[in-house]
């Protein structure tokens, strides 16, 4: 094992105020199981899971609530024991309606009877290990929620030779991953060993930003006698350093091709939280039903790093952290750069919820309808090398052809442009709308081409 300084510096990026000091030194606190839990069935990317329980069913912790509804999908498990109150369309943490299972906890928090002893996973074939990851409902816990088992099974012809463990945590305010790296560095090591066994990767990088020296030394200690070729990469602190494609560049100087996946450059990125969830799923047969959430912001009574069950409502989380202080301007699920502003706090948290942020009005961005003044700061900030200023103007003018030519589809919606924009234009919203419209136009074009082909 070696520790390396920043290897390569991806383009663009910004330096927001990090505000991590209020929670970074607080140990993780386990939250008691609340009365009602709202477990969304679309926590992951891909097809929403198909419910296997119905109203009135009695479930125990770890029992499946829903099964995968496709290749890119995942299992969802009951976070505690209790009765199913309803299975219906409700508001989810993404801000959209989605299928949600409401569970009334019985307070006993019974788990499934342990059927097998802790597995001696070192003797199992990779295929079986992946099955266990799938059965544990493990998804990417950094935010996107991509089902992990899909990433672990690259299609024929793709070889993954580089494993990158993402401990950058570049979002301001959030310290969940930081606490995992400090408190569970041994578990991360075990997770890396399992991933190493599955993938047989030749190189392992653990990327941590240089503003987290304590995490770096904890990891150094845990990995000091690691057998394979492993490097802890101390990357430069800047946002969005922890974005998947940017991190791959930081470690390998390879660019994931436009529209491609990390596996196209032989890389796989897993969040530190995902690594620990894999350990639970493989070693203890314990599915993913809880995670660490940073509850913070200047409008929360008592900022904390909380270990909470999936489906815990934001209302209960806030109550556990000393309630709302003053008048919050926004309630955000996730970090301040890419999180989703919530319209209600009666929404359950997901496997991907890394933070709950309550910000006062003084702290939040106020968007305006002012025109672009062409300062070019967004161009300098954009990690994807786009021209957000012209993109937003073209999208505003519904000139989607030009937006496509300006590569709007390569936008990663990191928000660096809107953070810098002195005119306070809602650039990310422009991009998201532009992307949707461009994709829609593409589909229409393809359909039309198909029709013409048929006609001729």
């Amino acid at each position: 094992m070696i520790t390396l300084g920043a290897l390569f510096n991806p383009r663009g990026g910004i330096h927001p105020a990090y505000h991590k000091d209020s929670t970074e030194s607080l140990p993780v606190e386990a939250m008691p199981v609340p009365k009602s839990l709202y477990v969304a069935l679309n926590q992951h990317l891909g097809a929403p899971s198909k419910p296997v329980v119905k109203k009135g069913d009695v479930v125990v912790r770890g029992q499946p609530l829903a099964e995968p509804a496709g290749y890119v999908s995942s299992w969802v498990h009951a976070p505690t024991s209790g009765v199913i109150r309803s299975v219906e369309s409700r508001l989810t943490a993404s801000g959209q309606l989605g299928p949600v299972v409401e569970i009334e906890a019985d307070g006993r928090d019974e788990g499934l009877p342990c059927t097998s002893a802790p597995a001696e996973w070192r003797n199992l074939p990779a295929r079986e290990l992946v099955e266990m990851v799938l059965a544990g409902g493990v998804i990417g816990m950094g935010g996107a929620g991509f089902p992990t088992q899909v990433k672990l099974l690259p299609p024929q012809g793709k070889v993954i030779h580089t494993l990158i463990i993402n401990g950058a945590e570049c979002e301001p305010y959030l310290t969940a991953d930081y606490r995992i790296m400090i408190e569970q560095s041994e578990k991360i090591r075990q997770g890396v060993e399992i991933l190493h066994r599955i993938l047989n990767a030749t190189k392992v990088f653990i990327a941590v930003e240089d503003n987290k020296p304590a995490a770096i030394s904890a990891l150094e200690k845990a990995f000091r006698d690691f057998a394979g070729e492993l490097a802890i990469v101390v990357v430069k602190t800047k946002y969005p350093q922890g974005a998947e494609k940017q991190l791959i560049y930081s470690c390998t100087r390879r660019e994931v091709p436009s529209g491609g996946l990390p596996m196209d450059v032989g890389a796989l990125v897993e969040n530190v939280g995902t690594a620990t969830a894999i350990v639970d799923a493989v070693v203890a047969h314990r599915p993913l039903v809880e995670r660490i959430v940073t509850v913070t912001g200047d409008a929360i009574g008592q900022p904390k790093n909380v270990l909470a069950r999936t489906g815990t409502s934001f209302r209960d989380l806030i109550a556990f952290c000393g309630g709302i202080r003053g008048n919050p301007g926004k309630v955000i699920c996730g970090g301040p750069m890419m999180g989703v502003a919530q319209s209600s706090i009666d929404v359950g948290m997901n496997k991907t919820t890394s933070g709950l942020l309550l910000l006062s009005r003084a702290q939040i961005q106020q968007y305006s309808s002012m025109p672009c003044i062409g300062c070019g700061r967004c161009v300098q900030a954009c990690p994807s090398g786009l021209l957000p200023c012209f993109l937003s103007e073209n999208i505003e003018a519904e000139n989607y052809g030009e937006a496509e030519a300006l590569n709007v589809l390569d936008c990663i919606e990191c928000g660096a442009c809107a953070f810098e924009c002195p005119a306070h234009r809602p650039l990310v919203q422009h991009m998201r709308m532009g992307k949707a419209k461009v994709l829609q136009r593409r589909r229409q074009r393809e359909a039309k081409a198909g029709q013409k082909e048929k006609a001729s």
Partner: protein
Amino acid sequence: MEYILLIISAVLVNNFVLTQFLGICPFLGVSKDLATAAGMGGAVIFVMTLASAVTWGLQAFVLAPLHAEYLQTIAFILVIATFVQFVELVLKKTSPGLHKALGIYLPLITTNCAVLGVAVLNIKKEHNCLESITFGFGAALGFALALILFTGLREKIARSNPPQCFRGTAIALVTAGLLSLAFMGFAGLVKM
């Protein structure tokens, strides 16, 4: 050197569009898209250069010896029309997309005062054959340059937000005026 100065003069100092205000119609008509503008520029360079040569010949060998200078205008337009028709045929065959984009403005080069202006100015300034061709080429180059410059500006105007009554051609003309103001800076660059 003299010919280079002639070109510089026609392109920058006495730019047909920006300081003499000739050829405004296609200047406003086909300046909405870079590729179309470049195509138009090419077409005008072709027509203007050749028309300069042929009209000079027509004047020197037919009209002047026969003392029929008063037929200048009509005879020149005949020549120009031929070249325009020829360009149109070529474009329709080789680049239907461009032909479609140029639309009515392509045949309108015929009545483009810039082309006739070059032919007439050549006679008036008593240019010889080579000078005529050079002047015609330079003027056309200036036209193409102004057109392409203006295309970029038009793209930005399309995203701008003028008051309702100034939208479209009105704001384009204001912009042409400002562009011509900027080109006043080149005044006196070449004394010809």
